[in-house]
């Protein structure tokens, strides 16, 4: 409902260099002040500007009149179909928002969340480096290393003994007694059968 007046044309008709974003911003602020939606600081600024600048005063006055006219319009009841449409749109928006993943919620459009996430990531990496580095670069004394070497050699010796013993059990006990003897027995029986037949 806000009426847009080409303030730039009004203001700077003879000074095209002033067609800048600053002037557009000022126009927005004048409109906001006129409609009563500007913050206190902007309102004061526009009021002061209008005191010293006749053009601003004129535009501000015009917008204020328009705003007053808009406000004075009688209230019309909103049609049901429009209300339904709005409700439908809100529901759709809710369902889309609910589908967003945690990551998207974390990092989308919320600078505060993004900053927090980045801060957490940095803390995490630094923490990891601090707590992990002693494990990687742990220093051992010469004596500790020599003891460890002896222990490793001893461990491998014991593994060797286990393998050696296992091999001797398999070769001397399992194979001759539990595999060789039944096979020999079977062959003897087969021989007996064949010779007997």
């Amino acid at each position, binding site marked *: 409902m806000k009426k847009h007046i080409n303030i730039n044309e009004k203001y700077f008709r003879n000074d095209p260099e002033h067609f800048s974003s600053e002037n557009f911003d000022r126009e927005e602020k004048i409109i906001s002040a006129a409609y009563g939606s500007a913050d206190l600081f902007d309102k004061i600024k526009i009021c002061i500007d209008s005191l010293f600048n006749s053009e601003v005063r004129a535009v501000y006055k015009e917008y204020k009149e328009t705003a007053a006219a808009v406000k004075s319009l009688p209230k019309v009841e909103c049609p049901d179909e429009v209300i339904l449409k709005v409700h439908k749109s809100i529901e759709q928006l809710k369902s889309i928002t609910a589908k967003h993943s945690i990551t998207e919620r974390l990092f989308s459009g919320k600078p505060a969340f993004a900053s927090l996430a980045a801060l957490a990531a940095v803390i*995490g990496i630094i923490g990891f480096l601090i707590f992990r580095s002693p494990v990687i670069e742990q220093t*051992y004394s010469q004596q500790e290393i020599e003891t460890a*070497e002896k222990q490793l050699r001893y*461990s491998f010796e014991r593994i060797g003994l*286990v393998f*050696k013993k296992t091999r001797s*059990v398999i070769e001397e006990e399992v194979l001759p007694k539990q595999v060789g003897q039944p096979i020999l027995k079977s062959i003897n029986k087969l021989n007996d059968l064949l010779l007997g037949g």
Partner: protein
Amino acid sequence: MLQLKNYLFLIFFFPALLLAQSDITKHPGYADFGDLTEFEQGDNVTEVFIEEGLIKMVANLSKSDDPQLSNMLNDLKLVKVNIFKPDNRAGKDVRSRIEKIDKELIAKKWERIVKVRDKNEVVNIYVKTSASGFEGLTITTFDPKGEAVFVNIVGRIDLDKIGKLTEKFNIPSLDKVNQK
């Protein structure tokens, strides 16, 4: 923008992932023997627990004197050995512990390459294999007249390299074991 979000997500969770991976107990070649201290009574107890950092130091130290040992140690992450002589009462419990470990390792897809039951003597040897080779070796033995031995070696184990160290460490050749 979505890619940036993914990168941020990765950066955020990357340290946690790395910390999780650095836990040796999560390694597929790790075997959990449980608490063996209840059996480790008396003087005949040997306990060796050497982790990657110290193993690498030993590997570096022995590089010039014993390159074969150094080479083999470089790929290891943990050497864990428990040797003890249980008394008569504890013998039964040690056997049941070995059976429990056997079930757990088989459930975790370890390959039992040796299983010997000779009278009351037990010898079990397992290897954990992956596409790149052996990732773990576990040995559990129990001799009622002698000792109980629990060994777990975690890391890339090259049986050829161990075979070359046979003479040095009195280890019989393992060339008869098929290397995957």
